[in-house]
């Protein structure tokens, strides 16, 4: 369903959108989160979380929070990243008074180099599902240490690494494998992904595709600020949400993931008011 304006600038429906049909839909019973800190502190088993970032500090703090909370709750923690990223996370963990050497020593925290992981995984430029399963099974079995640790939480930037190398197809394929591994092992999986939230092309491509591959999405570091920016931009460009706009919003089924309403609202604008989308997004960027 799209909404447009007539010659008198009144909103009205203009018919269905073919693009809309391709977007997976919101599950009514999907749990929703209020902040990334809350989500990463106690992720539901089998959840597959996407952290969208545009600065490295957010990755380090987010991953360290996720790992530290897991360690304190008796979970095994697996981290797959670049050397630089793993060093940054280690620094953050130490600042949280995590005894890094001790948790590594007792096998509760394990780290993996993303370059080696990618080299072991790819076959003809795409991830080999059988290899991935072998790697994941072995890592999780070792991490569980015969039941000494209650749960498993895994952070990785393998898809991010592949995407930055220009291999978006492989990045998305790895996400599918990650979802399957999370389900198989009852693990929580967190992915950090470098993405420009203000690039309108992403809403038809990689950003939308990545969101749809995950159960939960963290769109920004400061949820309140981002919400206020989105609200202000939409108010200025579209005006008050009433009449056909309100009906459209009510009928909109959203993406098939737990997405804060600020980010969801931008997908709604993209889908239902494509002519206004670039203006809205540009305004959000100014205010965010």
């Amino acid at each position, binding site marked *: 369903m799209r909404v447009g304006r007539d010659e008198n600038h009144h909103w009205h429906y203009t018919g269905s959108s073919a693009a809309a049909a391709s977007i997976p839909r*919101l599950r*009514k019973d999907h749990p*929703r989160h*209020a902040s990334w800190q809350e989500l990463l502190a106690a992720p539901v088993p089998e959840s597959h979380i996407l952290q969208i970032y545009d600065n490295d500090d957010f990755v380090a703090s987010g991953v360290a929070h996720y790992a530290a909370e897991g360690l304190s709750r008796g979970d095994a923690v697996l981290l797959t990243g670049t050397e630089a990223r793993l060093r940054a996370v280690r620094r953050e963990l130490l600042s949280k008074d995590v005894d890094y050497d001790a948790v590594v020593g007792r096998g509760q925290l394990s780290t993996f180099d993303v370059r080696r992981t990618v080299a072991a995984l790819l076959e003809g430029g795409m991830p080999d599902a059988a290899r991935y399963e072998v790697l994941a099974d072995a890592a999780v079995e070792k991490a569980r240490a015969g039941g000494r640790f209650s749960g498993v939480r895994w952070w990785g930037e393998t898809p991010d690494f592949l995407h930055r190398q220009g291999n978006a197809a492989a990045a998305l394929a790895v996400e599918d494998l990650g979802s399957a591994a999370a389900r198989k092992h009852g693990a929580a999986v967190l992915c950090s992904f470098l993405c420009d939230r203000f690039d309108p092309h992403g809403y038809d491509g990689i950003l939308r595709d990545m969101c749809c591959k995950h159960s939960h999405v963290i769109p920004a570091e400061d949820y309140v600020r981002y919400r206020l920016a*989105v609200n202000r931009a*939409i108010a200025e460009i579209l005006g008050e949400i009433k009449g056909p706009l*309100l009906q459209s919003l009510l009928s909109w089924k959203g993406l098939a993931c737990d997405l804060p309403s600020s980010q*969801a*609202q931008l997908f709604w604008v993209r889908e239902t008011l494509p002519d206004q989308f670039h203006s809205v997004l540009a305004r959000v960027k100014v205010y965010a």
Partner: protein
Amino acid sequence: MRDTTPSNLTDCGLPGIKRIPYGVHMCHFYRGRDELAAVLVPYFAAGLRNRERGIWIVAEPLHATEAKLELAQAGVDVDTALADASLIVRDFSDWYAEGSRLHGTAVVDFWLAEEARALADGYAGIRITGNVTFLTPETWSVFMEYEDMVQKAFSGRRIVTLCTYPADGCGAANVLDVVHRHSCTLERPDEGWQILTGLSA
């Protein structure tokens, strides 16, 4: 033989909308004091006619004294309704002060207890409203969790609920949050009212 099973439907009271089901959890984004009165006065008047206990938690811009006056001007015998407790009008600040220790499921349990008490007193159900003017960006998400709980807990109960939100305090993302946590949205495109439904309907 006459069917004595209580109806699952009741009169909404708003022009243009006839019957609504018990258990419905509605929302409305109002523009100013007059529109707030325009939706809540007929809503409660209809509830009193239907032998429902009305519990009106008032807040700015329509406080208790004004709310009672508006009801009286609409032909409701307010003094009698207040005296026999078929109508309870409380300022949000007083109500909140008493219930400040109630959070989440405790608030939902409070409403369910009110429903049970009203049914025991011979009422057909309860009709409630809250004017949501007290939220900040920081407390918004917590209140949305409460709305989620209400949406689930009130389904199938002898409770009619209308949550009113000031339109000028709700951005688009807030509207999205609210409408997807209610059964339906009331809107007034002209002199009459209409019900908009979406995912939860």
